[in-house]
């Protein structure tokens, strides 16, 4: 029986990639529970399975074995269309390389997921402008990505992920392309949003200063969890989201 209070629960999840004749195990029996409102970091060296883990939690990839529960749903049982719907409605993504649409302005990029949800234009604008002022992007709404710094672009990406008010945000090495000061500023923004909205954040990293900011710190090596620490700051920093999973 899986308890619904977990934002994410993984049970004995396995994933193996086949590269030509060679099988490359990416996850080897990972079990994990992440509560609603957590601000969790997944760390580990390259090839440890961080990205695979986030992709499986985000429904972008399927586990070969085990159970993956997100937002109260067993992802293994969902169709591609249902997974896309789940991602759109309940999960936000922040990518290492921002992945903004270069032909859209900052505001248009941030509202894109709302557009996919069918939210009317005035509500989209209202939500994005509110979020932009929270993440320090006020006044930059009309700029194209090429006209923004890396840190600003990543804030737009965070705003895009947050704007649909998802239960869970997955960020794959969100600070990897940012300098230290910008990375810290971005973490401030993410932590602020986590605290204010209660949205669950899971991000992968191998940046020590990012790891320090996490309230929960999960270390992966060779596709297995080698350590899982919860830090004191969690109690002060996390406000559980009322309707979170």
């Amino acid at each position, binding site marked *: 029986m899986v308890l619904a209070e977990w934002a994410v629960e993984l049970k004995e999840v396995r994933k193996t990639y086949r590269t030509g004749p060679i099988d490359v195990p990416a996850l080897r029996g990972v079990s994990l529970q992440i509560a609603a409102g957590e601000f969790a970091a997944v760390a580990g060296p390259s090839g440890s399975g961080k990205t695979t883990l986030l992709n499986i939690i985000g429904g972008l990839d399927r586990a070969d074995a085990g159970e993956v529960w997100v937002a109260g749903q067993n992802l293994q049982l969902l169709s591609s269309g249902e997974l*896309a*719907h789940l991602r759109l*409605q309940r999960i936000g*993504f922040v990518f290492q390389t921002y*992945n903004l649409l270069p032909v859209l302005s900052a505001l248009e990029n941030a509202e894109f997921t709302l557009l996919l949800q069918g939210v009317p234009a005035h509500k989209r604008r209202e939500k994005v402008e509110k979020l932009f002022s929270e993440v320090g992007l006020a006044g930059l709404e009309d700029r194209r990505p090429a006209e923004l710094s890396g840190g600003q672009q990543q804030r737009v990406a965070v705003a895009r992920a947050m704007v649909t008010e998802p239960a869970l945000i997955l960020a794959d090495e969100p600070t990897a392309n940012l300098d230290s000061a910008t990375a810290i500023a971005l973490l401030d923004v993410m932590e602020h949003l986590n605290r204010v909205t209660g949205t669950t954040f899971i991000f992968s990293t191998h940046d020590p200063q990012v790891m320090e900011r996490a309230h929960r710190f999960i270390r992966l090596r060779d596709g297995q969890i080698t350590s899982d620490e919860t830090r004191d700051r969690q109690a002060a920093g996390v406000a559980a989201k009322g309707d979170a999973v």
Partner: protein
Amino acid sequence: MISGRLPQLAWRNLWRNPRRTFITMAAIAFGYVMLLFVACLMAGLRWQMIQNGTCLIMSQIQVHAPGYYPSRSIKKTLGGRQGTDVSAMLAAISADRRVYAATPRVYGYGLLSAAHRSAGVELMGVAPDQEPKVTILNSQIAKGSYLSARMPKGVVIGDKLASTIGIDVGSEIVLLTQAADGSMGNDVYTVVGIFHSGLDAVDRGLVLMSLSSLQDLLHLAPARIHEVGIKLNDITAATTVAAALDLQLDKTLPVQAMAWPELAPELANYVEFNRAITFVLFFIFFLLAVLGIMNTMLMAVFERTRELGMLMALGMRPVQVIVLILTEAAGLAVASLVVGGALGVPVLWYLQEHGLDLGGASGGVISLAGVVVGRLWYGRQDFPAYGEAALGLAATALVSALYPAWRAAHFRPTEAIRKV
């Protein structure tokens, strides 16, 4: 849904690589201009052939006695041996508002002799004052004059016949024929005019004379005619009007009304062939366009693999990805058609107003399927064909984008996002 923003996003995506989009657009636009050019010239050729084919001698509709056509027996006159009230019949035909003019005709075959030479000829008796309203042979007179009531024994012959026999305007000729009653008819006539139609068979074998003269020669009473030739206000209604006249006239007199496609099946076949050729050319262009547009759209999709993967990761459904790509292709097509249409307007205007001079290529007048085309090949606006070309190109763009769109919709987000 994202329908409102989709065209905007698609349009901006198109202009990410302006040079590629511009080149593809230029190719489609140029192709559209070519299609307009071909459609306009082909429509002009059809029109010229139909006009020239029907207005030289034949007319657009002919009314005969049943069974007269195609054997053209001189005995089978309208109304049989008693004939008919020709004036009343012409009035009945002209009562139809779609009819521009109607004229009576008599035909016969005979031997033309002059001095030392003779030739077999077709005799056509016409009303000199009415025939020019239906056909234009009166405007083809190269020498002398057309028939007139003042010279009932005057005839007009073709230039090739004149040179073969060795006669000129003013020469006397003898026409010998078998009359409708079986006796021999012969008389002396004077050549009043020589025409040049451009059609060898006509210029070499037709003798035009007044209706009454030929009736006399054939021993036919004035009430006996073989045919009524009709010109309409709108030639495209020929078949419909012929059917209506057939029904209407048949109430008082057994008749057979035939429209030009029935009278000149080779011309009608050519017109159909011309249309088919036009569409074959369209189709060939569409096939070429498929390759060009597909190449552009594939490039556009593959260089955005990562981005499309990201959109799918965010929750964009495959069908929305397909719609996005198809919208980009549609945008490309519409913009190209607008540009092509704008460029095509002066081309179409020139073709219609000035035509193409075929004189240099043919050395003079050319004829096709037994019809004189003329030295100048004029275009004619064929808006349905322009619309079909535009719709065809738009459909081609969408079909061309289907495969790239399908490929894009099948990207796996995790793999697509990793693409550099």
